């Protein structure tokens, strides 16, 4: 059973690992841990990775906070290996990801204003 916090702001700022996992989970799609790990790497062209220890610690916390729904996979998992858990981003998880993104965008705006970076460039 998960408990959902009312206000996304209570979880901000997010740990980087949790933010990455939230971004890697597409809306409505169920992914298992290894697939999330690959998705994190793929969405950043390999620049960002997440290792299994951090990933599963983050997933446990996210399930506890109500950021993801955790579901048992089938016994005969098509991906092979042991029985897996599958995760789906909740609407609350999406709201928290949005709040964190806005926080980061506000910081980026400051960096742009100080000409540390150019808008739209790295």
């Amino acid at each position, binding site marked *: 059973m998960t408990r959902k916090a009312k206000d996304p702001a209570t979880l901000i700022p997010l740990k980087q690992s949790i933010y990455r996992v939230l971004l890697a989970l597409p809306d409505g799609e169920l992914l298992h*841990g*290894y697939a999330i790990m690959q998705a994190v790497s793929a969405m950043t062209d390999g620049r960002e990775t997440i*290792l*299994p*220890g951090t990933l599963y*610690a983050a997933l446990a916390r996210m399930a506890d906070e109500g950021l993801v729904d955790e579901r048992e996979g089938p016994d005969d998992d098509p991906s092979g*290996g042991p029985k897996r858990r599958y995760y789906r981003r909740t609407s609350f998880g999406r709201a928290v990801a949005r709040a964190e993104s806005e926080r980061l965008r506000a910081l980026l705006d400051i960096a742009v204003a100080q000409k540390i970076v150019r808008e739209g460039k790295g």
Partner: protein
Amino acid sequence: MSLRRAATRIYAVVLRAFPRRHREQYAPEMIDTFDRELAGQRREHGNWRALRFVLAAGLDAVSAGLGERLRHWRFGGAQATGERRRGGMMRTGMSWLDVKLGLRMLVRYKGLTLAGGLALAGAIGIGAAWYDVVGDQLHPRLPLPEGHRLVEVEMRNASSSKGEWRVLHDFLNWRRDVRAIEELGAIVGMVRDIGMTPTNFGEAPYVYRAVSAATSSPLVMGVRTAGDPEALAARVRVIATGIDPGLRLDDVQSLDALVWSEDAPMLASSGAFVAVVVLGLCMSAAGIFSLMSVSVARRTREIGLRAALGASRGRLLAGIFSRAIVLVGSGIAAGNVVLNLPGLGLADGATALLRTSAVMLTVGLLACVGPARRVLRIDPTEALKAT
């Protein structure tokens, strides 16, 4: 056994850094994820990158596992996190009920409470006295405006020319008789000390003041020698008499001997004080440990029932430590009251009492670690079966 399988087995061992509950839920998946990623790294990037992945994943598992352990220890895992968020008394993990039960425990085990309380009070008294003695010796301060300008205050018996111990009474007399430092006498000058006594460590300057003809004040003279100072002692006496027949040199000795004669009693008394303080601390810790162990042993069934009803580890620990805090707090309060009784004058200064009380609180809480670990090991099923 292939290297990949060996690495996977090692990774499975490293996962022990995680709490058991986490391992039971996630370890098979984590090992499988590690194994697949290792195979992928080796296939796409070669052995070197695979080795780097193994090392990084191992360190990551240790770090994340310890983080999870800390989270479970602090909040009792997922369930207690929810309890904590629901607020109220759960927020602190302690409640007035704990304090009430702690007080009831003190009444119930009168003998142990008395022994523990007395040991704590004694330890606080010894500790406070220790701070007073060390403070007086290392940082003597005259209780006057600009008293810090005097770096050395020494009591001398005018007839015997021997030094005397300063006591609180002297400071009170000085406070009454002397209104300003200048009233102590005209300061002739200041020179660097030659380091005779352990109280100024050879670096503090000495203050000299004019000596009237009527005052029998001892003078100290230092002579630097190139050879053996013992051989020169007799000759120094002769030289002094040659300068002034009335000049009599007593107690001529080498600086090493002088420093040792000053240091030795101080070291011996310090050692004795430390031994007594440590003994007091051990007695207090043993008293608290016994009381909490007895309490845990008698409450095994109750603790098991609480755990079975879903009380988190943090909540169970709060029950133990809050009772210990009640006990230690009572002992500290009793010790402070006794030390501040009018006329007793054992403790001079709030800072010393505060520090000693903090040390006692720390020792008291450390003494509870053993009983607290026993609480965490209680199996609800076994505890409920026990009669």
